[in-house]
């Protein structure tokens, strides 16, 4: 059986390894090697009710915490399976992939506390859990690469999904990122593990590789997208260059305080508003509070969108040993010494709970097409728990592979792939024949910048119908302007841009359709949660072209 995995991060590698273990031949397609995947940036850990700390933790509690955090629009059956499987998955990562988890003195996998969960449930590997998980999975994947059961096609991006008239995915058309050369591969199953939609928002805490184009292409091909309005803002990020650099939650966990200046004095607003947990309230609450201070009360530091995160009360030893990453980010990128100066922070986009809609077996709306990891939607609902992203990615990859091994039958005909390649080549020939008069006056960079600005102003921490409608109109205008015209860019970049714009429009439509406030989606014009109408997912589908519809 031939399986194609698009994406080489946590979800992609797990899917590839599990499929190869079951006897499939796997091709991993990615723009860069696994070491560059956004997964390596994950710091915190991976949740599993291993209960090595004797707190009587259980999979039931993990399930409940995940559902509560997701405001009950996550897939209950999928979350139950996630919590049930988590302990065995972490044992697999440790015992079969050689991940260097931090251990207790007695040799058990150590666990720590994470936001939104009362039990210590987060397994971790020093300060860089994501990197350690990836190193383990890469070394495991290499075993299958050596015997040829896993192949890598690095340097390529998805150009389109091959979908037969029977709505069955039969492979992919790819484009080489440098030569712009088009190829197609026929497959019995395809798994999308392409990460979040960072590209349509410009500055996020994640990798620039995760542009969201594959999700847009899945929408175009007929897969539904769910809960695109659910975006997690990490409360403490620092603005730098083309990015928002993350200041880990551990800075507050170790005692860091948030304040702004009011009437010439420090005002610890989180401690005043939430005396019990202060700055350690869940991420969405902290983000909304900082937003209120800056935008509704006009009390941002220096009149800007920023408040101070203060860790100056901590000893040098704590800062150096437990917050070395914070120290490094501050001193090298923003020239601030956190020993003696407060860190200016503001919420930044960190994670997309929404994405390609899948069931608990990670099937999408298209037969033989599966999705896992941040590009997919099932586990996190309206808000994700820290430590559940890495778990969701690994679990999703495993589930997708298992489902494929169980239900996909071999013997895909080559004809669909041949036809798709011929079609793609014809469109490409058309593109090559373009003349200057077909050229659009704007550049790709300008389109992306404009799109990001529209998305950030409408899809912020608080949304309202007026701004969302205006954004929708602006996005349609951008698409119309580009329609039929070429950009002065590579063919693959142009195709990806179209898919990203479609995803952007679908996201705004989702936010408009959910006329309530829930978790990460806060509407000032609909401030209440409305369980009777909206305790379910928004689903965007396309008619096979650019017409989108949203259902809830």
């Amino acid at each position, binding site marked *: 059986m031939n399986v194609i995995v698009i994406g080489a991060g946590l979800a992609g590698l797990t899917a590839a390894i599990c499929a190869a273990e079951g006897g499939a031949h796997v091709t991993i397609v990615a723009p*860069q090697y696994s070491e560059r995947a956004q997964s390596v940036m994950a710091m915190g850990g991976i949740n599993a009710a291993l209960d090595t700390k004797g707190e009587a933790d259980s999979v039931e509690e993990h399930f409940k915490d995940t559902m509560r955090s997701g405001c009950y629009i996550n897939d209950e059956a999928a979350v139950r399976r996630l919590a049930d499987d988590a302990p065995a998955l972490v044992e697999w990562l440790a015992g079969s992939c*050689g991940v260097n988890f931090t251990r207790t003195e007695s040799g058990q996998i150590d666990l720590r506390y994470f936001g939104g969960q009362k039990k210590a449930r987060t397994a971790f590997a020093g300060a860089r859990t994501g990197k350690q998980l990836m190193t*383990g999975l890469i*070394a495991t994947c290499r*075993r299958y690469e050596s015997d040829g059961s896993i192949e890598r096609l690095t340097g390529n991006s998805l150009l389109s999904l091959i979908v037969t008239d029977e709505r069955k995915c039969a492979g992919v058309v790819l484009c080489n990122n440098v030569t712009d050369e088009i190829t197609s591969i026929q497959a019995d199953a395809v798994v999308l593990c392409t990460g979040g939609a960072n590209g349509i928002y410009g500055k996020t805490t994640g990798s620039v590789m995760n542009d969201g184009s594959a999700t847009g292409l899945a929408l175009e091909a007929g897969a539904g997208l769910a809960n695109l309005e659910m975006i997690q803002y990490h409360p403490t990020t620092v603005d730098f260059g083309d990015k928002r650099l993350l200041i880990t939650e551990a800075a507050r966990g170790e005692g860091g305080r948030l304040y702004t200046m009011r009437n010439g004095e420090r005002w610890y607003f989180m401690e005043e508003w939430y005396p019990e947990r202060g700055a350690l309230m869940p991420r969405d609450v902290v983000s909304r509070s900082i937003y209120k201070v800056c935008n509704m009360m006009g009390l941002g530091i220096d009149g800007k969108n920023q408040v101070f995160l203060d860790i100056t009360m901590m000893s040098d030893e704590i800062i150096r040993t437990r917050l070395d990453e914070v120290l490094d980010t501050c001193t090298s990128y923003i020239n601030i010494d956190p020993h003696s100066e407060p860190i200016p922070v503001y919420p930044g986009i960190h994670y997309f709970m929404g994405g390609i809609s899948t069931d608990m077996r990670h099937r999408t709306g298209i037969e033989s097409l599966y999705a896992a990891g941040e590009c997919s939607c099932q586990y996190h609902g309206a808000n994700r728990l820290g430590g559940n992203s890495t778990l969701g990615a690994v679990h999703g990859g495993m589930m997708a592979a298992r489902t494929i091994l169980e239900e996909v039958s071999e013997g895909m005909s080559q004809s669909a792939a041949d036809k798709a390649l011929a079609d793609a080549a014809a469109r490409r020939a058309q593109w090559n024949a373009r003349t200057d008069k077909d050229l659009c006056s704007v550049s790709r960079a300008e389109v992306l910048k404009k799109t990001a600005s529209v998305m950030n102003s409408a899809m912020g921490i608080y949304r309202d119908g007026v701004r969302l409608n205006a954004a929708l109109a602006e996005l349609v205008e951008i698409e119309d302007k580009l329609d039929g015209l070429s950009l002065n*860019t590579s063919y693959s970049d142009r195709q990806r841009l179209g898919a990203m714009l479609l995803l952007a429009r679908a996201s705004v439509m989702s936010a408009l359709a959910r006329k309530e406030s829930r978790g990460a989606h806060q509407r000032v014009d609909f401030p209440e949660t409305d369980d009777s109408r909206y305790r379910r997912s928004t689903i965007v589908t396309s008619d096979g072209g650019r017409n989108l519809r949203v259902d809830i």
Partner: protein
Amino acid sequence: MIIRIKRQADSSSESYCQEFVYDGEKHVTVVNVIEWLNIRLSSAGLAEIAYDNSCQHGLCGACAMVVCSRPVLACRTFIDELGTDTVEIRPLGKFPVISDLLVDRSELHEAMKRAELWTEKTTGTSVSATCNNSALCLMCGLCLEACPNYAPGDIFKGMPEAMASLNLIPKTCRGEHRDAMEKNYRKQVFAGCTKSMACEKVCPMNLPLVTMMSDANRLSVWKIWKLIGGDRL
């Protein structure tokens, strides 16, 4: 500020140097400068500067290149800290150029495969700091760029292979596979290293490579450690 970049359309083209004037923000990284230039190149309808870029936070190793003669990660290199008004940027010299600053580092990954550096279906655990640190290697290639012993196609594979050996050997039971990994380490790392330790100076993860090398040697080279049971990390 003058930015001088060594460019090359594709692997078979001649390389040339192109100069740009940069007048954007001062405390920015080389990645920010390249992005700044690319926006302008793209607006002018010219070919953007090709390079690898992903996390922009020093965590993934994509943007390894040579800036002012030093092998660095571009996203961790600040132009106002280089002490010059002319910033020279060129691709890593020990890997084939694909285009501009984009190089083909696939040999790093192929070498790991040939050295049988993978996990067994059941692996042991190691809680040593060395083992932990070794797993942090970014496979960026900066150490090989600085290394006086490494040359493309040579049998010596340098620190990336040493790091993977350190992470995997202690977790693997004694037997054929472990012997093979140890033998490959002796041939492909130990035998070729003249201990200049230039690698430690340029490692973007600040890995203590001198100490780690001695740990790796203890594991795979010196039989005496095996006799006294000290070959476990």
